[in-house]
């Protein structure tokens, strides 16, 4: 079944400053993840798997790698006659997208011209496999105006403007704190919400007319008393990517079978752009343990506790452990790497040693030669 009266909007650009090294040459949604994916694959696949077939992707700057990745949306089944994928860069000036409120205002024509009654809004700073159909059903059952997806956990320390929610017995939001000083577990908003399209447009118009520009403070916090705002607790694997070490740890957690089963749920697969790589080749004397490996790699050395993306080469006599190595990077012979995040298309020449720390992985930028 296709088409369920819900459309999606993905902010591919927010939170970039938190992992500035990885986003220097790309937007947040285009950050590579998990051996073959980009962060945007997760919200996009979630939407498609939930029956949404109209998705607008907000993107502000540095979006060449994102548009290259998305293409016409074919890999997500979003290259369609009716609806499909809409890439929404600023019309004239990136300042049109200065904040979330202004951005919604700038895409008002897109919202107006849509016929779906509801909108799911998601950012690209969380990696999860969520069924929006369930969120939608709960939203209808609660007769809610807004449903906020949240997680119960300790606040990620670097999360921007963390929004902590309190609920009554029925799950209705009764308090909203933005950026509170809280230690211990709390219910924090995952930057994923479901809202009626017309209500969203009305709230944005209201903000613009009053020149109040904070989506979290002026809409969620400002309006929760006037509207029926409910929460939806997501209990699955859902790391927020708010720092390089979050990014590193989220990649590393894919070594757990439970996490893989949850995130790559067979009935709700994660789609991504395909590249016709051959299968990975393991050479004579290769030794691989506890690692996630993409297609097209050539492994002749030792790989331990790593995430290798497609097309990575590991030379003879080389040992890599606890590393995240992105697409098409070539590590020469007799190297030693541990706790390193290596970006795309890097060349590490023979006999090099690079080491970071578990709490502070070293980062090697895209196209570097070491």
């Amino acid at each position: 079944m296709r088409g369920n009266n819900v459309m999606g909007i993905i902010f591919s650009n927010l939170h970039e400053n938190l992992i500035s090294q990885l986003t220097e040459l790309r937007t947040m949604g285009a950050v590579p993840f998990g051996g073959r994916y980009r962060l945007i694959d997760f919200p996009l696949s979630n939407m498609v798997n939930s029956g949404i077939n109209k998705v607008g992707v907000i993107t502000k700057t540095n979006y060449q790698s994102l548009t290259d990745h998305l293409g016409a949306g074919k890999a997500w089944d979003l290259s369609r006659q009716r609806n499909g994928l809409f890439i929404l860069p600023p019309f004239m000036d990136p300042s049109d997208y200065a904040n979330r409120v202004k951005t919604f205002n700038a895409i008002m024509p897109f919202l107006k011209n849509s016929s779906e009654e509801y909108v799911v809004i998601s950012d690209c700073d969380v990696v999860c496999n969520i069924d929006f159909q369930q969120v939608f059903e709960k939203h209808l059952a609660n007769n809610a105006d807004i449903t906020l997806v949240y997680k119960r956990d300790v606040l990620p320390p670097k999360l921007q403007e963390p929004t902590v929610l309190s609920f009554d017995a029925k799950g209705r939001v009764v308090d909203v704190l933005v950026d509170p000083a809280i230690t211990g577990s709390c219910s924090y908003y995952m930057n994923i919400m479901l809202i009626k399209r017309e209500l969203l447009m009305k709230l944005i118009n209201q903000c613009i007319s009053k020149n109040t520009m904070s989506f979290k403070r002026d809409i969620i916090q400002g309006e929760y008393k006037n509207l029926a705002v409910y929460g939806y607790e997501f209990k699955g694997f859902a790391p927020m990517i708010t720092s390089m070490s979050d990014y590193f740890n989220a990649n590393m957690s894919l070594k757990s079978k439970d996490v893989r089963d949850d995130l790559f749920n067979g009935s709700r697969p994660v789609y991504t752009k395909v590249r016709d790589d051959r299968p990975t080749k393991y050479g004579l004397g290769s030794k691989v343990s506890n690692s996630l490996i993409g297609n097209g790699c050539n492994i002749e050395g030792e790989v331990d506790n790593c995430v290798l993306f497609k097309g990575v080469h590991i030379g003879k006599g080389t040992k890599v452990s606890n590393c995240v190595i992105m697409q098409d990077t070539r590590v020469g012979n007799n190297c030693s790497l541990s706790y390193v995040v290596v970006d795309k298309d890097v060349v590490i020449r023979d006999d090099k040693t690079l080491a970071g720390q578990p709490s502070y992985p070293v980062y090697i930028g895209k196209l570097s030669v070491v």
Partner: protein
Amino acid sequence: MYPKQEVVAMLLAGGQGSCLGVLTQKLAKPAVPFGGKYRIIDFPLSNCVNSGIEAVGVLTQYQPLVLNEYIGSGQPWDLDSMNSGVRILSPYQQIKGTDWYKGTANAIYQNINYIDRYNPDYVVILSGDHIYKMDYSKMIAAHKENNADCTIAVIDVPLAEASRFGIMNTNPDGSIYEFEEKPKHPKSTNASMGIYVFSWDKLRKYLIEDETTEGSEHDFRKDVLPKMLEDGCRMFAYEFQGYWKDVGTIDSLWEANMDLLDPNVPLDLSDESWKIYSRNPVVPPQYIQEGAQVQNSMIADGCDIGGSVDFSVLFSNVVVKPGAVVQDSIIMPGSVIEEGAVVQYAIVSENTVIGKNAHVGARPEDIVDKDHWGIAVIGDNLKIGAGAKIAPKEMIAKDVEGVE
């Protein structure tokens, strides 16, 4: 009105491939999985695209479902253009009667309309059971240069094997003066690869003529080519240099897969300039567990490996549990090798489970009776029970009960 295509390729994909036994029970030979993620037909299709051929007709007849679904719109090979691309051509009812494709030449004859609408100068005839990378445009260039009516690709084979092939005996200028089908005493080692370039006007005439020829089997090798030679058409051999393998038998299919693991074999699948395209499953990357041993192997996305894998080719979503051993084998998509199972010199088809401590196949050095050694083959969607033993060279088409 279709825009003219200088070249149209016709891919013969209707054969049963009976030598592959259980592997082609439910699908046509060109759809047989190969090399960890491909199907055999990916090679000729990718060669077409990489050679600049935009119109490809795929002639299907035997068990076409899997093949039709796999080719789909042709999008993975960029063969989904507006006016050209890949077309599945199956036998059809006509006013004057209904016929299956009676032979390779008759299959093309029945699709003259398809070829005519592109008004091509040349037609390339390909078959769907070879693994190779070849630039057909070079062969077409040679065809033009020789002002030929027909050009046949040949490959130099060892003299000892020449009697297994169709041999083309040529003059010094490359023109063919004689065909010998599987000769006992071959005069040369130029084996036909089953790849032909024809000037379309000539071929068209001969196909129509052949159709009404009494006693003809409507086959290129047996009827059309000999007739053309007899009539003095300009027929040339085009020597191909590179890797080429007919994968029509279990042994050659196994060998061709193993060739991918040999760095000295000139079949590079990671060559960016001549990619082999395929339909890709939506699966996560492969995971190699702690304690697994993986060497000299090719492994595809979605696999989960806990045991030992050596000299093997594993397709997507294969699971090798801890303590299992896979050696010198090919495991097709979705199959599971349970704890303690040993798979040696075997081909395991799709979605089959090899039970705990079962033993499939054997290494030639481990058995006494060498004459009965061979590759063991297990069909698709089967269960081999715990502790069961499958001897080398056996071909299994039904579930096998466990013995534990």
